[in-house]
């Protein structure tokens, strides 16, 4: 009963946090229930937590369209894997180089990295370079390279970790044994770097999984490289197109696959959410870790 006199604070805490927790999941509940609702009852009564009639039609349709959605998943998985692996690797390698104190030209290299954290040319300038010079439009690299792959913060986090968390005595011993810098990195440093690798890789993977902006900028609408998020975004764009032009679905020339009915739309969003929710406990652990690590970087 030590904290007895502060009980009302704890109770208020429970009340406020319960409300927030509810608010956090209620929209997802509505989404999921809607996806299992009968199309007609949604059209009549709107999306509801208690639909008149349940139905699996939306999911039946999603599985019939599996060619499109499955392909979307494949693109998402490929882009996420390549992007995360390459991005984490090259950040780690640069982080290691920058953590070597006697490296000639180290301060200049550091400046090249920090400058990118201070000044950004903007998405337009970037888009023009990527499309005019590198011709990334409608290529898988257009989903991987622009903006996401790596940034100065990743590099600095790696560098900090290598400088502070790898025991200097180990590096000293490797040096005495005549191990090269490369060997030291792969044989000694990397095996001790699990935490930092996951701290960078998981949020980066999440970034790739959730990315729709590169699809929006670098894919034309008929591209066959559409990731799951890009497909979901395109459905949005089609709804908007219809609203802006006051067209019915029939006269718009947009096929029903591109503009699914109200319940199917929700079923597709559910399909987009499921993997993230499955990975959530794991993701959460490393997001939290990355944040507390970042918070105590001093």
């Amino acid at each position, binding site marked *: 009963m030590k904290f007895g006199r*502060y009980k009302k*604070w704890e109770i*208020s*805490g*429970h009340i*406020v*946090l319960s409300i*927030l*927790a509810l608010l*956090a999941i209620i929209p*997802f509940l*509505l989404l999921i229930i809607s996806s299992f609702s009968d199309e007609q009852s*949604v059209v009549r009564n*709107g*999306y509801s937590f208690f639909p008149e009639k349940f139905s699996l039609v939306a999911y039946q349709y999603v599985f019939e369209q599996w060619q499109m959605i499955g392909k979307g998943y494949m693109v998402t998985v490929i882009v996420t894997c390549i992007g995360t692996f390459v991005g984490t*690797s*090259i950040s780690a*390698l*640069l982080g*290691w*180089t*920058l953590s070597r104190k*006697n490296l*000639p030209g180290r301060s200049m*290299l550091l400046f*090249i990295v920090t400058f990118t*954290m*201070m*000044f950004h*040319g*903007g*998405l*337009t*300038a970037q888009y*023009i*370079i990527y499309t*005019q010079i590198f011709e990334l439009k409608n290529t898988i690299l257009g989903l991987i*390279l*622009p*903006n996401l*792959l*790596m940034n100065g913060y990743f*590099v600095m986090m790696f560098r900090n970790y290598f400088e502070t968390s790898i025991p200097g005595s180990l590096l000293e011993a490797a040096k005495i044994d005549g191990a090269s*810098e490369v060997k030291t990195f792969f044989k000694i440093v990397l095996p001790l770097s699990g935490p930092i690798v996951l701290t960078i890789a998981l949020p980066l993977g*999440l970034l790739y999984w*959730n990315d729709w902006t590169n699809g*929006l900028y670098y894919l034309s609408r008929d591209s066959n490289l559409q990731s799951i*998020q890009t497909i*979901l975004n395109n459905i*949005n764009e089609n*709804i*908007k197109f219809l*609203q802006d032009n006051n067209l019915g679905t029939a006269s718009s020339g947009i096929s029903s696959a591109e503009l699914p009915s109200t319940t199917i739309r*929700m079923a597709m*969003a559910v399909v987009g959410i499921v993997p993230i*929710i499955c990975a*959530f*406990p794991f993701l*959460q652990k490393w*997001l939290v870790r990355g944040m507390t690590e970042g918070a105590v970087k001093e």
Partner: protein
Amino acid sequence: MHSVETKQKIELTKIATKKKRENFKHYIPLYLMALPAFIYLFVNNYMPLYGMKLAFTELDYAKGVFNGDWVGFENFKFLFSTSDAWIMIRNTVLYNLLFIVFGTAFSLTVALLFNEIMNKAARKFYQSLTLIPYVISMVIVSYLGFAFLSSETGFINNSILKPLGIDAISWYQEPKYWPFILLFVHTWHGIGYSLLMYTARILAIPREYYEAAEIDGATKWQQLKHITLPCLKPVIILMTMLALGRMFSSDFGLFYQIPMNSGALYSVTTTIDTYSFRALMKLGDITMASATGVFQSFVGFILLFLANYAVGKFSKDNRLF
């Protein structure tokens, strides 16, 4: 005497250069390891600096995108003569201020209340649930928003307003509601993350302070006022300054996806980022998009620099660069 000294000096420099060369040789593999990342930074971050020149030229496809005639600041003059420029800057700055003031106050309050919860399982439970929105992409959040706000099938119009006898509202056509909706979605999406961050800082405050205060019979309110808040002050100031440094940027997903890019809402949803996206991708106006981008980059740089300077004055360890 003299010549011996010179000789020695020459010898020493020779040894030094030799050592330097060996040193350099020893480090070559390290430079090679850094190379892929530098190539990427060059392509992704440094080449766009060259692309920025489009903001200062007249676009002429016949001459090639990069070879237009130099027009100085004409494009900027044109950009700032439109009402769009004023609207997007106003929106970007005001939303940022709103998010900073409200966001900080709200997440701090929530974190302080969360800190009073002693039950470990309950803490974990609340933390997990509030973090879920944070890992969901804005596209999917826009689907959630649509389920509530759609004028025909939305939950609010059908299940809340109708039973109350209130006329349906065309949410995606009515600008007046959107500052609140965007503030709500922004907070909803980010609260789990801010909660984690403030909680980490609160847990770092030494327990002895509170124990001593309890022995002295301090009320919870007094503890909050005299221990917790003063201890959190540095973080709050730091975060606010960094947010002020980013005052000319906005969350593209939030402002583009949640209003479903609805034209009727542009007056309250257009920010610098959504404007330059539309100029570039929907209107094909590369020049205006470039001018907007360059304007945002420079103002953003100045603000970030000032913020960093201010942070440095305040606490050297927390500087960004």
